[in-house]
């Protein structure tokens, strides 16, 4: 197979041939001497994908297939299972088999779109794969990351909801498609929204009721319907979203498709429906949640999780409910370090705890992955409304009530001038089968929750960068200095340093408390080696006590609390005998580190 890098290099070099003489004149160095990587020109991308549009499930799958075909060694496309309606839960595994088996390396799990209408995370997932591959072998940090880590990328864990949102009218698409009888009439999903006027959009219904309403037209922009001040009456009321009484029971839109929350069906602090709406009847009842959980439980090497949602510009961590209690201090420090770094990488995003910063969530996904699976987990709420007018000057203007971009009218201004009116449908009269003469209009489904298409690529890149940063800060165990010293009587003192340079510990304190991650193991091998004792060295640069480890088998020590982030620990063994001795630090989430020392009793030579 031809080397794709060399093709790119040649193309870049060809570009340099044209540019260089113009800019450098007579002082030009010889053309062949310009290293192609410094040409300033972009590499020729191997796979061209769009990041200024929204991909439905089939389009995502097609692009994933293109990527797999282009990088078959590093990418493996598969499916976690099927959604309720039979769509694949697409999984792309990024792994370089030359640097180790998939499950032997720390892995980052990235998913998106559990709420069907929160689509842009799927685009971030696609962008992430594309970016990693195009830059593998070109940007050193990316190459290193791909070689050291494994990525599991699921662009949509609710493909039914995604397609329902993108291909349909956009109504009721947060949920998945397991039928639920919302109106208790014994029939499920029989009365949802309807596109009565056939324009492809579910609009709002308002009725003109002069002097009897609660709403009025805004004086500055008549498209805006606003509440009247207390003590006054308006001319309009809202009657909900576009739809009719499909089941002839006298009620409108009372039983739409699904109507639950796929992000409340997880097994940490799960609560029944009356405490947590949308939870369903038991954790992992939903086929999508079960498929994802089965996968996660089969991959204990996953150390990091990101679940993309929208919107609000948040970098969220658990706990989801106050009564779960704050995470252990050690874990909070790790989350804080990563979260605050994220705030710098993602302008307008804030690092928050779910229950205090957003709202209470019982049985949420990242509560489960943190508490029940011991995976450090974030959930980013993609897109923040401040990004529409994203300069200090414009935001100053927005606070001026007389400005054309003051907060109440800003969306309309943006739509008029930046999207050329694409997003708003003006109110039009309609004769409704149940409500009589009404008007229908309002925002299209894409407005507000997702960025304008032209701003999506930046969203993709910045969120990807944060997740790659998180992935890079997953634990990575290495061995450090070793020493062997005779202490007399045929006994030797063997010391080995083990290092985790990354921010994240091999086992989160919460996971250790819950006993949900297999303990790290410190293993000794060596035919001629008898281990008399093992202990932690408090400080190898000072004389002092060694904390002896009181476990029956010093050749297989359990370390339930793992290895902290950014730290080095020295293990000391007293051994008798001689020969090669291998000391392995074996962690599930930080990989294995192996140190080999040679214990050489006096008189054996060498």
């Amino acid at each position, binding site marked *: 197979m031809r080397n794709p890098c060399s093709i790119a290099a040649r193309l870049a070099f060809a570009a340099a041939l044209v540019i260089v003489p113009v800019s450098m004149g007579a002082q030009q160095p010889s053309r062949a001497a310009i290293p192609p990587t410094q040409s300033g020109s972009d590499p020729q991308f191997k796979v061209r994908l769009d990041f200024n549009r929204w991909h439905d499930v089939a389009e995502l799958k097609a692009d994933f297939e293109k990527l797999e075909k282009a990088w078959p060694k590093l990418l493996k496309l598969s499916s976690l299972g099927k959604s309720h309606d039979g769509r694949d839960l697409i999984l792309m595994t990024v792994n370089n088999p030359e640097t180790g088996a998939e499950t032997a390396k720390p892995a980052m799990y990235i998913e998106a779109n559990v709420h069907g209408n929160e689509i842009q995370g799927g685009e971030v997932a696609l962008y992430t794969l594309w970016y990693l591959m195009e830059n593998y072998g070109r940007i050193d940090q990316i190459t290193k990351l791909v070689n050291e880590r494994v990525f599991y990328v699921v662009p949509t864990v609710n493909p039914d909801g995604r397609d329902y949102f993108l291909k349909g009218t956009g109504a009721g698409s947060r949920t998945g498609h397991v039928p639920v009888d919302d109106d208790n009439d*014994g029939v499920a999903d029989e009365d949802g929204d309807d596109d009565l006027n056939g324009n492809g959009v579910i609009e709002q219904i308002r009725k003109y009721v002069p002097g009897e309403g609660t709403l009025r037209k805004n004086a500055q922009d008549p498209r805006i319907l606003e509440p009247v001040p207390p003590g006054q009456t308006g001319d309009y009321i809202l009657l909900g979203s576009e739809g009719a009484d499909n089941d002839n029971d006298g009620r409108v839109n009372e039983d739409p498709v699904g109507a639950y929350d796929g992000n409340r069906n997880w097994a940490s602090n799960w609560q029944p429906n*009356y405490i947590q709406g949308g939870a369903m*009847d038991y954790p992992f009842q939903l086929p999508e949640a079960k498929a994802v959980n089965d996968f996660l439980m089969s991959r204990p090497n996953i150390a990091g999780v990101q679940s993309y949602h929208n919107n609000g510009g948040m970098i969220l961590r658990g706990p989801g409910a*106050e009564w779960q209690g704050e995470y252990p201090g050690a874990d909070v420090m790790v989350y804080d370090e990563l979260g605050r770094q994220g705030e710098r990488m993602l302008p307008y995003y804030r690092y928050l705890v779910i229950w205090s910063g*957003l709202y209470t969530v019982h049985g949420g996904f990242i509560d489960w992955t943190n508490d029940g699976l011991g995976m450090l987990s974030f959930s980013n709420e993609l897109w923040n409304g401040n990004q529409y007018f994203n300069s200090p000057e414009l935001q100053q203007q927005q606070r001026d009530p007389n400005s054309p971009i003051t907060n109440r009218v800003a969306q309309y201004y943006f739509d008029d001038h930046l999207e050329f009116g694409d997003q708003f449908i003006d109110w039009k009269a309609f004769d409704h089968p149940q409500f009589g003469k009404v008007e229908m209009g309002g925002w299209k489904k894409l407005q507000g929750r997702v960025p304008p298409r032209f701003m999506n690529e930046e969203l993709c890149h910045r969120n990807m960068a944060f997740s790659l940063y998180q992935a890079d800060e997953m634990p990575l165990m290495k061995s450090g200095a070793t020493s062997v010293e005779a202490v007399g009587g045929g006994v030797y003192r063997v010391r080995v340093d083990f290092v985790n340079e990354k921010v994240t510990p091999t086992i989160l304190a919460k996971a250790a408390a819950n006993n949900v991650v*297999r303990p790290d193991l410190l293993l000794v091998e060596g035919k001629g080696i008898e281990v008399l004792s093992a202990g932690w060295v408090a400080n190898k640069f000072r004389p002092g006590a060694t904390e002896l480890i009181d476990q029956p088998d010093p050749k297989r020590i359990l370390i339930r609390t793992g290895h902290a982030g*950014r730290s080095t620990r020295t293990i000391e063994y007293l051994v008798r005998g001689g020969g090669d001795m291998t000391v392995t630090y074996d962690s599930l989430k930080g990989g294995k580190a192996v140190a080999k020392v040679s214990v050489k009793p006096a008189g054996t030579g060498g």
Partner: protein
Amino acid sequence: MTTQAFLRAACVAAVGAAFIAGGSYSPLAAADYTRYQTYDEMTAALRDLAKTHAKLAKLVEVAKSREGRSVWALEIANPDGRPVRERPALLIAANFEGDQVIGSALALYVADQLLTGYASSPTIKERLDGHVFYVIPRANPDGAEAMFGAVKSARKTNAAKFDSDNDGRLDEDGPEDLNKDGVISMMRVKDPKGPYMIHPDDPRLMRRADAAKGEAGGYSIFWEGTDNDSDGFINEDPAGGVDLNRNFQHQYPYYTPDAGPHMASEPEVRGILDYVLARRNIAAILTFGESDNLVSPPTRTGAHAPASVVDLIAFANQSVEGARTVGRFQQSQQFSFGRGRGFGGGDDAGRGAAPAGRGGGRGATPPATTVAPADAEYFRTISDKYRQLTGIRATPATRIPGGAFFEYGYYQFGVPSFSTPGWGIAQGAQGAQDATGAQAATGGRGAQGGGVPGGRGLGGPGGAAPGGDAAESGTAAFDLRLTRWMDAAKVDGFINWQPYKHPTLGDVEIGGFRPYALSNPDASKIADLGKSHTEFTTYLASLLPKVAIADTSVKSLGGGLYRIKAEVENSGFLPTSMAQGVRARAVAPTMVQLGVDPAAIVSGSPKTNFFPSLAGTGRRQTYEWIVKGTPGATVTLKAVAQKAGSATATLTLK
């Protein structure tokens, strides 16, 4: 299977082979109620019942166990008349705990009696004509099979693989029958540091020495076996993983070994949940198991009766406490870098302040954990009748019900839901109230931190009580009542301590409560208990709610307008929904719908109405409509209840 049983089974198989639907080969055989039955025998009996009563009984598979056995449900009803799924149903389920095999026998016996009694008993006929019974006799077939193995250990768990002590090795340290007596019992060992002493009132029993009274212990207690993995603990990680009555969603004991990795993690549990959720007509649940709310009902304020813990079992379980904490180190790494202060320095409060937020969701409502006072009255009425019909006044050992199916049934599924061991010990032997009063059922079930892998899969009922509870008691008061009952009733339930030379512990004694003796009566009792429980079952089914359209009237107002009045009645005893069913939004409100176009209703009630609950014994709900119609036209009125059946009436406009 005995040779005799095999021959009998083989004979019947030749006749019944044509009726065997799918699955593994299983012959037909009438149930034998003089002994406890293996999975194959029970399956054969179920198939036999389904074949003999082909019209009234249907055998369906609810789940496949971890080892591939079927969890069966026998569905019993006369299918003529109203569709079965629209009738109020009673679910009977048993043997969630692997060692509670009596429940399995009783469920099967009741099913058998209902089917055979249909022809002769008008009461049973009435129940099967108007109701449906779903009977799941063995929820945990893998666990129950341990009763029939060569070496018997009273295992509760299913066959899931679970690393109980989380040491990276799976099921590596189970018990051994060291003295070859065919059962796994206990070892007591003289140990100067041991906290237990021989009970002064019964030298077979042990109690915790009370240092305040100047007592010294001198004994340690273990389950019978060796430390196979040389980790310092004996039998801390036996085969068998999850206690199914710890795996349901109400008050789930998070991160304790017997409870599994998460709620509803087990195929048996998922299958049963899916089965139940697909049958919302289930209006009451009766389970046989190691918790009780029938002999001792909830108090008037809705608190559970306390559990009765067997201390000897709790003590043996405590011997493996700590297996899940070996290897917890202070993170005293010699240096950390990139930070001014300690990084990962243990579980201190961190920086204290969570990142600033906008206030978020404080004050979420916690789920209910006590029976609603209105419902408690029904529980107490039914409990009175249970004691009267069965004569059971005192239960054997019972345990705290966190994660139990019957608790799910009430708190989340929203119906009256009961648990009983299904048998009793002599009155006066009941220890629940006075002996172990410290173990209030509502407290201390958590064991949230660390958990106790204690004797998982071993021991009798009460054995899986969280360590904290047992530590509070330790007086062996209930154990003493058990031995006194056994002595008086001549129950061979205690293996006297016999000396044994243990490979690592040296001189020990092996003995203790006989496996299964605490969770099952002698098999000779099955038939009598089965009869009284059949009576109770038919009584319970007779209480189920039943909606009817009690009274209607149509009055012409002239001009094509008619005033329609209807009264919907609950003629059953129980309400159409328990208070908890309403609170938990678990029971759909009853729908009352007038079959006209919504536009034809000029005034009055809407076309579709709902009421959350209607008390029983003839309480009524009234609706009135004024509709526009043509004289002589008919209008259908229907009332549809989830747990109380449905009713229709046809009204003529005149």
